[in-house]
């Protein structure tokens, strides 16, 4: 063993013996790799549910009067539609986009990529997962409690979410479960974030300076900082909202509110306060969803272009800048909530300034590709798709960032298009790129390439077909969260566009079966993966596939160079791994 495990007074655990019982090994495991897979499988379950919900929504938008076998009364009510909207958004944002990239891949690969045997706090890590799991159980339980799922959207806007049953089905039990679930999720994410930060600061292998960390690690690290600072605020909001609902307070509910012809017994509160608390969390949250994807995209683009990441330092600083600015722009979600024009102006300028580091990242991705010997493997395709979607979705953000323009576009499908491209699908592409890229390492087998490519093209084209037309519906005034636009005079003629999107959604949804099949088939029957099938450079490729319990089998790597040394002039191979001692590097003949 190297000196690594006991230096600096840090309490790194010596390599643990592998637990033998099934429960300790796979259920209540403290191994970050097992926990990472648990997070991943949780997200996989969640995404399947989330997609089914979205398809039901798309179906209802086009055939609002269809009789459905599983809906009581045959036809879906408007409240049921809203419940779908709420549950789709909540499950996707929290349990997929926050869970898979950070909890899943971050957990699995952050320690390995920095050369550590595990997280800084393995038991806390296990706790984080199981609390997340409990949160998931709560949100799913909202489907089956009396009244059903809540209807106040993934943003849980007050006063709707604060009043209880009177304001609609699902606002009783369902909404309470929603708040409990989100609060638990906050707690779990706080603990997870703390663990990620401590691990990155304390457990880097000798030679792994900050500027030698893979950009994936930068992504996870900054995401964890955002999580640490943002989830605590949402937790505070959750506590207050729960008090409003169950202790009779009125933090978020103003006086004189009449709902369903009944004067509500609340007074003194402010719905704006909830919006501030929610979006102070909510905006950083969108970066929590995307930063790991940015890291993965950089990592994969560099590997398959066989070129170093263009402007590595700028990339790392841009991640930090995005994280920092991300805390100062939450007001752009509230331009029409009654904001002073001066604050609106400030939030607008700050919001647009995020465009600068975002553009730096984009141009550096292109710079990385420029002149590379590009290998179009499936992970590479998804990383390219990520860049494309991020740009397409980010540009519409610049329009929304103008208060005057947002007055018209707020709460329309334009916003839905913006955030689905830039957050929803882009982050999912990051997850897919990560899955195809790291599957060999995680499970010791290769995934099927042709199936992966088919999956990519269906999903890529499909995503654009679903979300591009939404911009036009939004500009035409199509309001989001309406259950039935065909009944609205000035929107009725846009129904064919909705039909097109629905068909695209069903095809894209079905295409995900290629992925599921590929995943589970390859798990069992894929060709065996070598240690380093992509000829990549970072530490996870220095160990077996899958890695042993202590990650490196008793030896701990030292790091001799930056993470992306591809096609170095004068070297014999077109890649020089981080762990290779300078004397071992092959020279060109």
């Amino acid at each position, binding site marked *: 063993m190297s*000196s*690594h495990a006991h*230096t*600096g*007074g*840090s*309490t*790194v655990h010596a390599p643990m013996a592998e637990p033998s019982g099934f429960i300790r090994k796979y259920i209540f495991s403290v191994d970050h790799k097992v926990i990472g897979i648990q997070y991943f499988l949780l997200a996989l379950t969640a995404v399947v549910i989330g997609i089914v919900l979205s398809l039901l929504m798309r179906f209802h938008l086009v055939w609002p009067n269809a009789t459905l076998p599983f809906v009581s009364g045959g036809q879906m009510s408007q409240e049921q539609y809203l419940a779908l909207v709420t549950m789709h958004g909540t499950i996707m944002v929290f349990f997929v986009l926050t869970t898979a990239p950070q909890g899943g891949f971050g957990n699995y690969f952050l320690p390995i990529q*920095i*050369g550590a045997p595990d997280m*800084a*706090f393995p038991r*806390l890590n296990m706790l984080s997962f199981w609390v997340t799991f409990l949160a998931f159980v709560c949100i799913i339980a909202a489907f089956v409690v009396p009244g059903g799922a809540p209807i106040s959207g993934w943003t849980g806007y007050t006063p709707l979410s604060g009043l209880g049953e009177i304001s609609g089905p699902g606002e009783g039990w369902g909404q309470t479960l929603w708040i409990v679930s989100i609060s638990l999720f906050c707690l779990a994410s*706080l603990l997870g*974030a*703390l663990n990620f*930060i*401590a691990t990155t*600061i*304390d*457990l*880097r*292998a*000798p*030679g*792994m*300076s*900050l500027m*030698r960390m893979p950009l994936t690690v930068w992504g996870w690290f900054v995401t964890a900082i955002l999580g*640490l*600072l943002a*989830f*605590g*605020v949402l*937790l*505070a909001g959750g*506590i*207050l909202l729960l*008090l409003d609902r169950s*202790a*009779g*307070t*009125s*933090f978020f509910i103003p006086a004189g509110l009449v709902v369903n012809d009944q004067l509500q*017994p*609340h*007074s*003194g*509160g*402010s719905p704006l*306060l909830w919006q*501030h*608390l929610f979006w*102070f969390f909510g905006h950083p949250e969108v970066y929590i969803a995307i930063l790991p994807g940015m890291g993965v995209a950089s990592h994969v683009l560099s590997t398959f272009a066989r070129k170093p990441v263009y402007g590595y330092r700028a990339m790392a600083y841009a991640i930090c800048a995005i994280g920092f600015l991300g805390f100062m722009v939450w007001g752009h979600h509230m331009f029409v909530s009654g904001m002073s024009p001066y604050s609106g102006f400030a939030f607008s300028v700050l919001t647009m300034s995020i465009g600068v580091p975002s553009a730096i990242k984009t141009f550096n991705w292109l710079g990385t590709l420029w002149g590379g010997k590009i290998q179009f493997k499936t992970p590479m395709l998804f990383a390219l798709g990520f860049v494309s979607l991020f740009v397409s979705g980010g540009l519409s953000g610049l329009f929304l960032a103008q208060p005057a323009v947002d007055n018209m576009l707020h709460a329309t499908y334009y916003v839905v298009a913006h955030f689905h491209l830039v957050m929803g699908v882009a982050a999912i592409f990051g997850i897919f790129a990560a899955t195809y890229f790291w599957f060999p390492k995680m499970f010791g087998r290769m995934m099927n390439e042709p199936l992966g490519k088919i999956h990519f093209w269906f999903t890529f084209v499909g995503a654009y077909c679903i979300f591009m037309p939404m911009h036009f519906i939004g500009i035409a005034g199509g309001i989001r969260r309406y259950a039935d636009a065909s009944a609205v005079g000035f929107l009725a003629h846009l129904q064919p566009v909705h039909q097109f999107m629905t068909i695209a959604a069903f095809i894209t949804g079905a295409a995900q079966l290629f992925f599921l099949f590929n995943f589970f088939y390859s798990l069992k029957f894929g060709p065996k993966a070598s240690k380093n099938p992509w000829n990549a450079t970072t530490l996870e490729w220095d160990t077996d596939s899958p890695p042993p319990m202590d990650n490196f089998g008793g030896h701990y790597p*030292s*790091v*001799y*160079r*930056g993470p992306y040394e591809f096609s170095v002039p004068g070297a014999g191979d077109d890649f020089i791994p981080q762990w290779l001692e*300078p004397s071992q590097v092959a020279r060109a003949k």
Partner: protein
Amino acid sequence: MSDTEFEGIVASPWSGGASPFAINSKKLGMWLFIISDSLTFSALLISYAYVRLETPNWPRPFEIWPAIAKSSLMTFVLLSSSLTMVLGVNAAFNGDRKKTVRYLIATILCGIAFVAIHATEWVTLLGEGVTPWSNPFNPAAPLFGGTFFGLTGLHMLHVTIGVAYLAIIAWGFGKGKYTAEHVEVSGLYWHFVDLVWMFIFPMVYLLSVNPK
């Protein structure tokens, strides 16, 4: 090309292989927890300020006797507990197990006293008719009770958890299961909870002293 050489960067404490702050991960973890928890409290205090500023004639019912006297006593008790905590940590690093445990127990007793006095405060207020949804002082400011019970309640929960946490540490340290570092980390938590009170006391009590 020094950047690609291992030796080129060993000089910096950030170059890997060691904790750059030269503290153990547990301590770092506790600091990180404190950061996130202070954000939760900040959000609550800011929410309190927000609704208070929005409400005309926010009640200011606290008389010097008994409310302010009691809360000052609570402040004193909590501050003393920080002192005993410091002494306890000091004793732990000096390897004096008995003394450490004694100081920890003193800290725990202060914590319990704090919660007990606070509980009488709550009972008094509830007796006067203050609830989370109403108060007798100004019915147009129903959030007076909500903010009061919410903020102090969450703080009390932290003190209670702290008491249990310190009890475990005292027990384990007495048995030789825990090191001085464990004691120190629990001390960080305890001081933090103290510090939060130093915000709650002026904002909730002193700003609501009866002006008459």
